[in-house]
């Protein structure tokens, strides 16, 4: 079996299984070395880059799975009558991003950073399988340490944690005042207007004090 044929067989397996398949499973049942299998998968990936292809290989660590290309979702959604999936809530996303960059981390540390209790968000992330128990902190009370799962990587489209942008990318973005390209057009707008409303409220509150005093 040459690499081309191996690529074909692997495509068949991934298509037939539907689910994710690990490198070791592929090696075992095909009786091939990891590097042979990896090379064949590279051939597939190359192939899928063509615009004439509508599928892709999703790799999370050493597991592989086929999926449709997200950019075609609008066309596919209609004909396959898919229900709109709902994304994570703001609270869950905030909690998730703290866990992603600070893992392993305790609930208390997350609460402190967010300024509000995160226990319901954490429960939700656990239920969704995006985070898991990553041991205990050797401190009084031995609190649970949370870390992200492979399901998290799949949800945000990374093949490993190493692919996440450095924390510094974001902290520098702060100094440059919202010059982050990665941020969409939609979300920050909403965020800003939210912020603006709050600012207005507080400014009104703080602004009104001198006049109230003057009136006395």
């Amino acid at each position, binding site marked *: 079996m040459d690499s081309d044929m191996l690529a074909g067989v692997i495509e068949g397996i991934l*298509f*037939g299984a*539907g*689910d994710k398949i690990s490198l070791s499973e592929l090696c075992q049942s095909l009786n091939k070395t990891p590097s042979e299998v990896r090379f064949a998968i590279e051939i597939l990936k190359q192939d899928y880059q063509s615009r004439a292809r509508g599928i*892709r290989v999703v790799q999370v660590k050493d597991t592989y799975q*086929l*999926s*449709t*290309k*997200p*950019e075609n*979702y*609008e066309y*596919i959604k209609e004909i396959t009558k*898919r229900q709109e*999936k*709902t*994304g*994570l*809530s*703001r*609270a*869950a*996303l*905030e909690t*998730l*991003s703290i866990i*992603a*960059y600070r893992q392993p981390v305790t609930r208390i540390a997350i609460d402190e*950073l967010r*300024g*509000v209790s995160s226990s*319901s*968000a954490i429960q939700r992330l656990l*239920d969704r*399988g995006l985070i898991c128990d990553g041991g205990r902190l050797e401190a009084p009370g031995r609190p649970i340490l949370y870390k992200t799962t492979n399901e998290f990587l799949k949800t*945000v*489209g990374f093949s490993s944690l190493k692919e996440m*942008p450095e*924390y510094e990318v974001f902290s520098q*973005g*702060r100094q440059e005042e919202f010059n*982050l390209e990665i*941020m*969409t057009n939609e*979300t*920050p707008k909403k*965020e800003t207007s*939210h*912020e603006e*409303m*709050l*600012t207005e*409220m*507080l400014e*009104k*509150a703080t602004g*009104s*004090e001198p006049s*109230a005093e003057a009136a006395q």
Partner: protein
Amino acid sequence: MDLLIHLIQKNKIDICDIPIAAITNEYLAQIKTWQDMDMDVASDFIVMAARLLEIKARALLPQNKDQAEDEEDIQAKLVRQLIEYKVFKEISAYFKTREEREQGAIYRDPEYIPTNETEAPLEIDPVSLELCFKRLLFQQEEETEDIAPPQKIIRELFSIEEKILEITEALLQAGDEGVSFSELLHPDITREEVVVTLLSLLEMVKTSGLRLVQNRVFIDFQIEREVEKNG
């Protein structure tokens, strides 16, 4: 948190110089316009107000010299924390766009391949079954989460506006003497109505020249119309 960051960056406000009374007034004013408010903003405002109060309270408390952190340290810590939080907000916006993109990927179910051979007995962990089901449900229901578990919203039985009218009426009838707080409370009054009565009184003190006279703490107090007294 959002707002605090904003204000600190703009240097408009010193964390320790936050006028609590003013914020509380604003809070009250907001209650009136509650209906047309975005609940998200409203709850954030409450959280923020509470936070400011806490900071203020800490600043007002006598400093303990044995404390490891002095006031400036606490402030610096807060600023650091705020900036950090801001960074994580940006990260979560970034994750959101990635998540949205990935939601467009469609996975496929396995092809049906009949196997004739006798299969090994299965053992399924019921917990995994339950988790599986919950995960499926959550994918459709996540958006309900932001504020918390479903709660019954209790209809407001007593409004401050109505109560103010009621009190004004009582004061008019009582004349110069005024009325005592206990006179405003009927025997089978609910806790909620007591609170509303008190709130209304406080509102009236602020807006319509009412004065409260209490001779000693923990006893009933008298409510008088200031305008008439002066006049």
